[in-house]
Structure formats: structure tokens, C-alpha cells
């Protein structure tokens, strides 16, 4: 149950340095005496979780909170095995009756394309055809002659989950280069002529074209077809502290500062 380092650092050095210094550094002591509450899960949510936990801890100074990564799946298993109290996830799981699920909001998944493709706008239909292997050259979509090459994330990534759900898994005969983090996808796409890939989160991605979809560029909160839906899980039988922290994580107004768009209004009862 640790931060998946490849993804963790793609987030922001400031958050990470602070997160890792404060949480993992003295974590030696924390490892020996278990924290009152352990939060684990999706690395894309760590900076946000860190900010919320910091504020929550000031209001609840008697409860110690440990935050670790591990990815959506890792957090889910940590929760199921009793090694975490709250799991953050980009991927939906079925909580059953023993677990509670709270939505956190939504995070955009952006399409990035190599500059030599000559394409900066795609329709969802065209994207599906790319994923199915029906588009082999960008010239078929009004771009240059470069061959289409997919750069995807490994299984277990939240961004991949969204893309696979909306576009379908790529056809087996479509070549896919697998990269291990948002940053690695962008680097590979920027270096490989004709490459197209996807990343989670709205950041200035260097060296690539961030693709408009159906003529729309992504605007925070605007209409966008590819959103990841981060959520959290905790045991239904949990004590008041875990309930309180879960709801703070699900409904904190700070999320917009971290590129998370609040989900449609819903009341979260105590």
C-alpha cells in the first residue's frame, strides 16, 4: 500500500514533496503504531486527498490519518482486506451491502496527438474508428499521411478504464504501445510520429496537441465526453470519524482547485 511512484510524481512535485515528507517520511513511526484512519487508493487523487486530510486533521486533532497510494485497485483491495479504512478509486467497484460508496466528482481524460499527425479535432465516431483499427492513416481523417499508432496505459489505470468504456478496447490487430504513467504517455506521443494517447487531468501537456472532441476544447466543468468518475469506499459499519472524513473527502469545495469537477448535486446524509 504505497504510492505507485510512477504515477505519484506525475502529479505535482510540490504536493508530492509535502505529501511524502509529511506522510511517508516519519511514516517509520506511523508504520509501527497503526494510524487511526488509513486512506489508500488512486494516485490521481492523492494531492486533493492530502489537502482535504490536512484541513480535516486540524478540525479533528485527536485522530491521526495516514494517506498512501497503491492505485485504484490497490486501494480497493486494501479496504477489502482491512488494511485501509477509506479507498479512493477511479474505477467503479460493486460495494455490496458491507461497503458504502460516495462520488467525489469527475476528472477529464484528454486525448493527446503527435504534432505530425496534423489533426487537432476529432469526433467521437472518428475516435471509435481509430480504436477499432478502421483508420490506419491520419489522412483518412483530414490529417497528414502519418500512420496511426496508439499509446495506452496499463490495465488498472483509471484513464484506461474510461477510454475502454467509451471507445471499447482497441481491436487486437491495432498496435498498442503501453506506458506506465500520464507523463510517459505524453513523452511517447510527442516523440512518435502519428501517435495518439490519453491522459487524466487538465494540465499543460508539453510537446503534443491536446485534441478537441466534436469541435469542443475541454473547459473545466464544460461538456466533455470523457470523464473519469473518482469515488471513495468505506465500511458501512465504520465509526463516526471515518464517516466524517469520508464525507469531507467527497464534498470538499477544494476539489475544483485540483481539476476535479463537482458531481451533480446530491445530499450526503450522515
Amino acid at each position, binding site marked *: 500500500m504505497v504510492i505507485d511512484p510512477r504515477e505519484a510524481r506525475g502529479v505535482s512535485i510540490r504536493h508530492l514533496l509535502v505529501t511524502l515528507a509529511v506522510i511517508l517520511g516519519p511514516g517509520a513511526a506511523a508504520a509501527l503504531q497503526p494510524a487511526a484512519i488509513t486512506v489508500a487508493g488512486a494516485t490521481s487523487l492523492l494531492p486533493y486527498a492530502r489537502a482535504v486530510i490536512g484541513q480535516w486533521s486540524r478540525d479533528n486533532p485527536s485522530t491521526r490519518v495516514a494517506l498512501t497510494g*497503491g492505485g485504484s*485497485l490497490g486501494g480497493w*483491495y486494501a479496504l*477489502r482486506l482491512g488494511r485501509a479504512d477509506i479507498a479512493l478509486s477511479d474505477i467503479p467497484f460493486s460495494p455490496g451491502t458491507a461497503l458504502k460508496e460516495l462520488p467525489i466528482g469527475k476528472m477529464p481524460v484528454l486525448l493527446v496527438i503527435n504534432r505530425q499527425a496534423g489533426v487537432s479535432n476529432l469526433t467521437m465516431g472518428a475516435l471509435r474508428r481509430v480504436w477499432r483499427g478502421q483508420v490506419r492513416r491520419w489522412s483518412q481523417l483530414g490529417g497528414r499521411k502519418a500512420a496511426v499508432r496508439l499509446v495506452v496505459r496499463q490495465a488498472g489505470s483509471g484513464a484506461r478504464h474510461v477510454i475502454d468504456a467509451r471507445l471499447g478496447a482497441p481491436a487486437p490487430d491495432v498496435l498498442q*504501445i503501453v506506458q506506465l504513467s500520464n507523463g510517459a504517455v505524453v513523452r511517447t506521443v510527442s516523440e512518435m510520429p502519428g501517435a495518439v494517447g490519453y491522459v487524466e487531468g487538465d494540465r499543460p501537456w508539453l510537446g503534443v496537441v491536446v485534441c478537441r472532441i466534436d469541435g469542443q476544447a475541454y473547459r473545466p466543468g464544460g461538456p466533455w465526453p470523457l470523464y473519469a468518475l473518482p469515488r471513495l469506499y468505506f465500511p458501512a459499519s465504520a465509526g463516526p470519524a471515518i464517516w466524517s472524513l469520508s464525507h469531507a473527502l467527497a464534498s470538499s469545495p477544494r476539489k475544483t482547485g485540483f481539476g476535479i469537477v463537482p458531481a451533480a448535486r446530491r445530499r450526503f446524509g450522515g
Partner: protein
Amino acid sequence: MERQALNGWIERWQARLLWAATLLVAMLVLAITLVLAVGATRFLQSRGWRLGVLLGANWNPLAGHFEIGLFIVDTIIVTALAMAMTLPFGLGVAVFGAYVASSWERTALRWLLTVLAAVPSVAMGWWGLAVVVPGLRRIGGGPGFSLLAAGAVLAVMLLPTFGLLALEVLDKVPEDWHQASLALGASEDQNLLQMALRVSLPGLKTAFLTAVARAMGETVAVQMVIGGAVYGFHGMLGPGATLTTQILTDMAILPLGHPAHGVLDLMAVILLAGLTLLTIWAQRGDERP
């Protein structure tokens, strides 16, 4: 007499310390093997011991498909490509260093090879991304990230090590034997091919298998240039994934406690089993001249 007693006491305790260190290392090795074996066994048990099911190419851990056949095949292909490329160069360097070079050339070559053998593999991966991948993309037209790129990067990485080991082996052929062979009328070429290389064969085999072991176990240099594709076989110029790169890829998504975490242990066990076979093979009949 007291001094003698003291000496005896020191002697006994030092021997015990040495024994304790050996025991510690033996336990460590045993523990590593056991942890991996238990994880792999439990995984196989959970799949009902249907080994055949694991040998296909359907790898989708989230959907519960854990067929690792593709990674085994890619590991073998990449290793074979690397060795095929490194063997002639390594042998050439060894022959030059052992029989052709002048004294100062030989010393310089050895020092150079030693330094080059210590160049970290990640530097080779860096070079692969800068030179090999774009080069193959231009020549072959594929994505560049490929089994061939991984093989080429490994070949360059192994060349100094293999060259140095082979040089040491060729150097051990006694000077008398060369004199005798030449005196019997053999040309230098005949002496080299029919005497020196032939009597060095067992040692060269060990050097070769040492290089094979390093090629099989290398992770980062391969990961940087192989493309990580887990769907099907795409030819030498297409991407793939080896056992080592896939362990790196999936270590975070299959955490301890995940029912399929054991598949990583299984991949590690397969790697270790392969290395054990190589070691046994290398040691059999390794009587140097």
C-alpha cells in the same frame, strides 16, 4: 599458555561468526525462494493447476485472464536476438585482445572493457530511445518500440561483459599449445579455429551463458524500448513485453492480498527456473584448459 587459550577462543568464535554469516545468507536465499514458491503455488492452486491455461497469450489481469505465454516467448526472443548480435562482436573483441593486440593495446582494451561493462543498463536504454527506436522506425516503418530494439540495446549492453569474459578464457590457453600447433604447420587461422577456440569451448560456453542470464534478467533497458504491448505477437519490429518488464508494469496493480498477486511470483519463479537451468548447464563440464 594463556595466550594460546586466547588464540583458541578467538579461533572458535571467528569460525562461528563465519558460519553464522553463511547461515544468514543461506537462509536469505532460502527465504526468497520460499516466498516466491509459496506465492506461485497458491496462485496455481487458485487456477486449479491448469498449467496449459497459463501458456496462452490472453493477459488481462482485471478481467481475470493471466496467460503469461507471450511474456515467456518474448523473453526468449529478445534474449536470442541480443545474444545473436553480441556473440560475433564479443568473440571478435576477445580474439583481438587475447592473440592479436600488442601488450599495451591489450592492457588498454581490458581497462576500457571493464569500464564499459560497468556502464549502467539505464544508459543503454537512454541510447536505445535516442538512436535505436527512431532508427528502426525509419528503416522498418513500425512503431520503433520493438523486440528487435530491445535485443539491440541488450546486445550493446552485454558486449563489454561477454567480450571481457571471453578474453579471459582465450587468454588461459597455454602459450606452449600455440607454439606446438604452429610448429606442426598450422596456419594462424587454423590454430585459432581448430585449436584455441576449440579447447576454450567450455569456458566460452560459461561466458556465453553468463551473458544470457544477464540478458534474461535485465528490466529497465528493455522496458524503455520494448513498447509493453501485451496483446499478441507483432513480429520482431513490433512491440512486446518480457517477464521482467511485465513484473515492473503490474507490481502496483496486483498488490499483496490481490488474489492474482501470485502471478508475479510465478513469473519470477519461471525466470529463476530458467536461470537455474542455465547455471547447471554452465557448470557441467566446465573444465578450463
